[in-house]
């Protein structure tokens, strides 16, 4: 496949009991409009479920969305589980991220971490760049 035609495959996932689905659904729409292939897990996912789907669907990136305080633990757990299973799928996270959590999340390889109100192109650019660099190894 010609590189330029290659579509980024995304899994948008909502871990835990957080019910706020609008952000995740909006993200799906934004990424689809940007030409990505998007799979949405729906709500109420455990880390296991998310990781299994990510591997089965061979996605380039997992976008985690949660407005609950459990996000820090879930995001790190998902990133670590993917690594443990030998996957190089990128993990990005969104929602309302506590300042204190940011270094820990970055250390675990979770990036993005944009809050509400972030312009769409910032999100798209970040995902594209990270996937191209880390997963497709383009320069």
């Amino acid at each position, binding site marked *: 496949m010609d590189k330029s035609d290659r579509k980024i495959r995304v899994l948008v996932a909502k871990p*835990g*009991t*957080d*019910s706020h*689905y*609008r952000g995740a659904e*909006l993200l799906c*729409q*934004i990424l689809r409009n940007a030409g990505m292939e998007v799979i949405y897990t729906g709500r*109420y*996912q*455990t880390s296991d479920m998310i990781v299994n789907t990510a591997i089965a669907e061979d996605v380039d990136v997992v976008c985690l969305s949660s407005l*609950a*305080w*459990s996000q820090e*633990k*879930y995001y790190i757990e998902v990133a670590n589980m993917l690594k443990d299973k030998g996957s190089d799928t990128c993990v990005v996270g969104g929602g*309302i991220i*506590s*300042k*204190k959590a940011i270094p820990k999340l970055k250390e675990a390889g979770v990036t993005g971490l944009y*809050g*509400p*109100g972030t*312009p*769409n192109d910032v999100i798209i650019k970040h995902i594209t760049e990270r996937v191209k660099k880390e997963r497709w190894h383009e320069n």
Partner: protein
Amino acid sequence: MTTKGEKKKKEISLDRTKKDQITKKTTESGFELKPSYGPRDLQDFVYERDSGNDGEYPYLRGLYPGMYRNILWVSAQALTRETPEKSRMEQEVIWEHGAATFYFSSGDVNRTGLDPDHPLAKYDIAYSPENYSYKRMERSLQGIKLEEGIYTFHGASSQQDDVLCVAQLATIADLWGADKTKIRGSCINDPIDNMATAFSIDFPFEIGMRLHGDLTEYIVREMPTFSPFAAIAYDLWEAGCNSVQQLGIILSTLTAYHQIALDRGIPFEQVGRRATISMASSMDFFETVCRIRAARRMWARIAKERFGASDPKLCRLRIAIRTPGQTITRQQPLNNIARIGFQALAAVLGGASAVDYARHDEAFCIPSEESSMVSLALNHIIAQETGVGLTADPLGGSYYVEWLTNKLEEEANKLMKEIEDMGGILKVAESGWLRRLVNSARDERMLALEKGEQIQVGVNYFRLPDEKEPEIVEYEFDDMDKLQADLLEEVRQYKANRDIQKTRQALLTLREKAKTKENLMPYIVNCFKADATRSEILGMIREAYGYTYDTVDMIERPEFLN
């Protein structure tokens, strides 16, 4: 003061001339506005028929004579902390500031119908009080004379949560020997809202409607000073519905609920005098004012014309307003104080019966004590300093306000008629029409936000570079790892140390009764008394209707119930 780089010194960007121009000339609901309104826009307006004075049918100008001069709106604050005890302490601070209600706001775990030991809940627990058993709720009520408080179950946007909360309160009242007939308060109990917005995991609709009726009946019989249901437009607003849609849907809903009560043999007088809706105030100041005024008049007319209410007092609609979290921005959070302030003022000018204030830092953390203080002060400043309560309905007579109120009522009536023609609100809720309506409203709002048609100052208008964003103070949680471990241990102990036979018996009876037409509320109360937990109770009811035990379909029914 910030110093700017020298090289930037000579030019400042001027390309914002366009931004200075206001081009929007429509309201939030999309009504095209004229430059101004005058008496000719109100030619059909008959004061005695369409307005009336304060405290007079059709209550356009307020429910009571003199309004806030005599009865101030109820100030409420939804607030939860990590434990029942900590939530209680916060409540006490709020009481000191004149708020009267005990506000129960359930967290995500309750809202999804799970016990804290559910695998999906493992990281989410202990951020709110987690009333999985009545004992948890009891802990936050220690030392209170139940008959003296006012209890509000409005937090969760989940009907199953309302049903279980009221049952827990009734359980505690029974065990404490309190007089249930004197317990005041309110719950939402609005299954149609859940069908429309699907915000929470809730009962399937058929169960929801049955328990709606059961709860109503139970409250009317056992707790007659408690308000059995309300129609809630707050979630509809958050989901993207405009004022017309909100009014059309919730007034249809409220009508349906009263009809259900009638069908169960409850006279209109017994529920009609507590008719309540809850709405969001939104950023469109005047539309919020008019939405509230229109709702009052619409309900008065419905109560009189459809339900034949004999006493005009039975035509009064109480309206609780919450300033919405969705308009709170993370950028420059202190700006939100002005936003909340405008929304709250609109609520008061509309004549709301209760106002619940958002906190300016909700968009990025659990509300801090500082933001709670500001919200409390906000209430007092409106009440004490601005003088807007000096006279009833101060906007009454304004050409624009009366025109917009009329317009909203007219359009909402059309939607109600449309719903009626399709077989009524229950039908369209069940058929998915309602959900589709809400979804398309949501898509429209998202589009407007994306296109920047909807301006949010500091977000898509004059946004600051991140490094210039002011520092924000985050709420400090207690040690969450420990709190979560402790809670899990507590649940384990609770489940291990109860009289399991008694629990089993109560739950199995509930499941059996759920298959009959009997009112389930007393059986749910019995289950709590027998130390059953929330998800066990929900599981039994679900199973009776042929659904899986677990709301998220992850775990099996516990062994002792086999």
